[in-house]
């Protein structure tokens, strides 16, 4: 099977089409389903409805209801089925409509899927993909807006993907499906309607644990995850105008984490700001900032700083919700201050 494994910045160097974020995910799934008959996808309203977000529209027509499977509203139940099926010869993709429902499946994911390989002394494998959404600003309120990627990132045995572009989403989803371990794949649901981008025509996969430098710069490192990559890029453009040349680094996977690229970038720029859409406290920024501070301490001009969502449940009301997520202006202001401008 022809396949190119590409790391960073591939999207600008190869022949590409402009597609949406959700389209990229669907393409990856479709291509892997064509290549491997043991890949199936199950979740609520994934078949005829093509998910609530309509992201998987068309798959059931191609693969049938045997492989694109509507389930009852039983997240623990069908995730458990995914775990068992993954152990016995299949590569299931489990669709968790809203990342908030991760709360319901942590036993299956953390106590079962993540541990079976280790507990069995390496005898059983669990090649399972959990697709879940994350992200706020859709006026969906506190139980449908959370970004809980910090939790699985804390659990040994899991890998965690938080793509920010269509090209990354496609290449990383392919790697996720081919991986022999349980992978939690978070899609920022606002991206379905707001993010488009070039995706290589060729068959490719992006390895886990390779950060992508989304914008090269010299004065400050902005580490952004998921939707915050776009925010960081926007802030970088604003910073440019005041003469600050920001580097934007996208870790793409929280685990494995490309510590080297993060640390090297911070060493180079001597300033670093980490931005994430999860709740601020005890979230992924703490780990990333610590890793960078440990690795680049003697090259830093000041402490690594962090921005996350406000440490409050996500409110419904637009002006309140908008106040919870870091904006380009927030990033710009803090970065500017860090650069003494």
């Amino acid at each position, binding site marked *: 099977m022809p396949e190119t494994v590409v790391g960073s910045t591939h999207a600008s160097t190869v022949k590409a089409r402009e597609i949406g974020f959700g389209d990229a995910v669907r393409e990856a799934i479709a291509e892997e389903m064509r290549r491997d008959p043991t890949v199936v996808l199950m979740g609520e309203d994934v078949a005829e409805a093509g998910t609530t977000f309509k992201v998987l529209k068309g798959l059931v027509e191609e693969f049938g209801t045997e492989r694109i499977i*509507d389930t009852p*509203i039983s997240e623990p139940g069908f995730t458990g089925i995914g775990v068992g099926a993954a152990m016995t010869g299949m590569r299931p993709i489990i669709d968790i409509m809203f990342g908030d429902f991760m709360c319901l499946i942590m036993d299956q994911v953390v106590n079962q899927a993540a541990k079976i390989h280790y507990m069995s002394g390496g005898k059983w494998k669990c090649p399972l993909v959990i697709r879940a959404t994350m992200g706020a600003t859709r006026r*969906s309120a*506190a139980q*449908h807006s959370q970004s809980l990627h910090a939790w699985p990132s804390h659990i040994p045995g899991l890998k965690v993907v938080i793509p920010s572009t269509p090209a990354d989403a496609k290449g990383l989803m392919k790697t996720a499906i081919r991986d022999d371990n349980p992978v939690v794949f978070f899609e920022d649901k606002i991206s379905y309607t707001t993010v488009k981008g070039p995706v290589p025509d060729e068959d490719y996969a992006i390895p886990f644990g390779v950060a992508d430098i989304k914008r090269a710069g010299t004065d400050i490192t902005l580490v952004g995850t998921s939707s915050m990559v776009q925010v960081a890029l926007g802030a970088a453009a604003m910073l440019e105008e005041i003469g600050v040349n920001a580097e934007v680094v996208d870790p793409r996977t929280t685990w494995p984490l490309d510590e080297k690229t993060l640390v090297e970038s911070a060493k180079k720029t001597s300033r670093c700001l980490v931005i994430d859409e999860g709740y601020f406290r005890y979230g992924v920024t703490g780990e990333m900032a610590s890793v960078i501070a440990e690795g680049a301490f003697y090259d830093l001009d000041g402490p690594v700083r962090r921005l996350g969502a406000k*440490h409050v449940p996500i409110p*419904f*009301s*637009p002006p309140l919700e908008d106040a919870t997520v870091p904006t380009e202006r927030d990033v710009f202001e803090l970065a500017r201050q860090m650069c003494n401008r």
Partner: protein
Amino acid sequence: MSTVAKPSKASAAGISADALIRMYRQMLAIRLFEERVNDLYTRALMPGLAHLYIGEEAVAVGICEALRDDDYITSTHRGHGHCLAKGADPKLMFAELLGKEAGYCKGKGGSMHIADPATGNLGANAIVGGSAGIATGAAFASKYLKTGQVTVCFFGEGALGQGVLYEEMNLAQLWTLPVIYACENNMYNEYTHFSETTAGDIIARPAAFGMAAEIVDGQDVRAVYAAASKYVERARRGEGPAFLQLDTYRYRGHHVGDIAREYYRPKTEEQHWVGQRDPVKLHSEWLTSEGIADKSTLDRITAELTADMDAAVEFATSAPYPDPSKVDDDVYA
């Protein structure tokens, strides 16, 4: 309600004319409320989405008519009807739906989280099955504190997929808790027919725990009220929980944006329920045919409610948003 009815089959069935007319008014209030929600959404005045209760009004109204003011309910993503039936003020509801400071939750909750201690509303819930625990816990407290309150847990048949519901039913039955599990069987879990998600008969599930359980025509508000009264009073007497399967239908989409529905349910099915089984129409016809209310009474109610609802929408649309600084309030008590 001022109209006093002559003795009739209805009062023979043990329901006062007051109650019968109040139930009509409440169902109509929900209908008019929801139509305005849809309108606000269509005019892009409402943030997010809403799940309309149109078609299912008899369920909330028949059940809540059987409750005391201090009884509790828990509600769902499709919760406006429960909320209104339990006595909520449409003004504060619309304000909440629009994310305004004057709303029930100061705009923090929105359509799926309206809650109100004053009317015993423990809150709508955007997690399917997510309120089963809260409802059962409230019933636990009522029993422990000997308050005589009963809790109704509303949920859609889709919640039968959530394991926690079985844990709660087992606990409620074991501990003889005053809770009614009200399963609104509108036949669809979003875009999937419940027969594709539900093995066996729904009613066999509570019965397996030894729980009293009954299937009720959810389009007949009097039947709903009668069944609810029976089990609510039984629960209040300390005789334990019950499960009601209320067969009903949602006339509109799963949410306001779900317009093209033919890929998952036939138009003819919708037409049947809307045309033949409308709970508001059925009850109004019965009221007039029984001579409990005449057309002019019903028309007056419609006029009153229309004016109320329009005023409520006006109140909500012109109310201010909360100041962004309020985002940090209410995280901790």
